[in-house]
């Protein structure tokens, strides 16, 4: 009798232990793990395109098409973003009305720091992008903010990207539930279908890099922001990350959100983080 009882107890506790182990596993699967996500993201592309050098992914469609790459390399001798870059350098050096400069707002005087953006501001509890930081710098010094989708912001970010060229993307996610939530939010935005055309960012840039959408060759999502801002032949000019998010939304027939709205900042955070280690190639030139 006693033996049977202890056996029953034994099996019950064994069952309980087994249950505890499995529930712990289930809980762990729901936890946000950016490190694992980034590894899986990079491996997906490295395995899908084994002939593409890891650092080449930051060149977007040129990493997917040899002929386009050749034409682009030729143009890089005399890149179309030269004028915007020069304008950006001049703007960066020009003091505000109060005598201060952009250098006063940024670490290392704003030189060679682009790869650290976006970052999670723990005081504010939100993601801060480079474009947002630049406008906050302007407003803190009594200047009107620039439009996120026009030339001035594009020229400024072009210059700052240029000073970081070659440096590996280095985004940090602090051990803060709000930062993890922002990362997860950005990831969700990236994979969610939107617009009447029912496209998600992933539909083109994860499922179909190297394929065509009308006459354009699609870029891989890995490292897609490393070349920003970009001179697009389509725009006959330079455009910011904000501009690209907004136009991409309207191209899928989704009403775009406000530039630098939470979703956009979070998706920039997600895309930049999963490209950690890949070099900054901005400012870029695209078709």
């Amino acid at each position, binding site marked *: 009798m006693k033996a049977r009882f202890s056996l029953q107890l034994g099996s019950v506790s064994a069952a309980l232990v087994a249950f505890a182990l499995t529930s712990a596993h289930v809980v762990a699967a729901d936890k946000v793990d950016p490190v694992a*996500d980034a590894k*899986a*993201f990079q491996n*997906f592309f490295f395995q899908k395109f084994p002939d593409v050098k890891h650092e080449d992914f930051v060149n977007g469609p040129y990493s997917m098409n040899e002929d386009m790459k050749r034409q682009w390399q030729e143009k890089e001798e005399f890149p179309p973003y030269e004028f915007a870059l020069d304008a950006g350098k001049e703007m960066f050096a020009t003091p505000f009305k109060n005598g201060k400069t952009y250098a006063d707002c940024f670490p290392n005087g704003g030189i060679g720091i682009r790869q650290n953006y976006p970052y999670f501001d723990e005081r504010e509890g939100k993601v801060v992008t480079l474009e947002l930081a630049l406008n906050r710098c302007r407003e803190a010094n009594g200047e009107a903010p620039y439009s996120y989708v026009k030339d001035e912001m594009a020229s400024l970010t072009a210059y700052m990207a240029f000073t970081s060229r070659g440096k590996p993307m280095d985004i940090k996610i602090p051990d803060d539930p709000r930062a993890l939530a922002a990362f997860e939010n950005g*990831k*969700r935005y990236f*994979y*969610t*279908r*939107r*617009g*009447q055309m*029912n496209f*998600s960012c*992933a*539909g083109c840039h*994860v*499922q179909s890099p190297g394929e065509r959408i009308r006459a354009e060759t699609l870029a891989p999502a890995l490292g897609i922001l490393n070349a920003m801002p970009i001179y697009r032949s389509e725009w006959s000019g330079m455009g910011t990350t904000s501009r690209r998010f907004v136009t991409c939304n*309207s191209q899928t*027939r*989704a*009403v775009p*959100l406000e530039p630098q709205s939470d*979703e956009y900042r979070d998706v920039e955070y997600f895309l930049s983080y999963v490209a950690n280690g890949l070099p900054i190639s901005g400012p870029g030139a695209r078709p």
Partner: protein
Amino acid sequence: MKRTLPLAMLLALGLASAARAANEADYKAAFAAAEAAAKEAASLRHQWTTTVSTLATAKKAADGGDFDRATAAAKEAEALAKASIFQATSEKEAWKAMEIR
């Protein structure tokens, strides 16, 4: 024969009401429904550009007195808005299927 007569009358009635032209009241009802759906889609941050433009088309047609066209456009706008709401709600879970793991 006896059974089919009332059926035939019912059909004729149905067809007759469909053949009646839309009036301002029809348009206003359709537009209100469309606007309500569009508002919900906007609050979900999943509004479609075509919903907005179709609503505008409806309003423009109504302003010009063409209530047939206005009502048809309003109904289409409502359908588009409702589809975008469906997209927003189903994507809440569906996105996970696309995720690289």
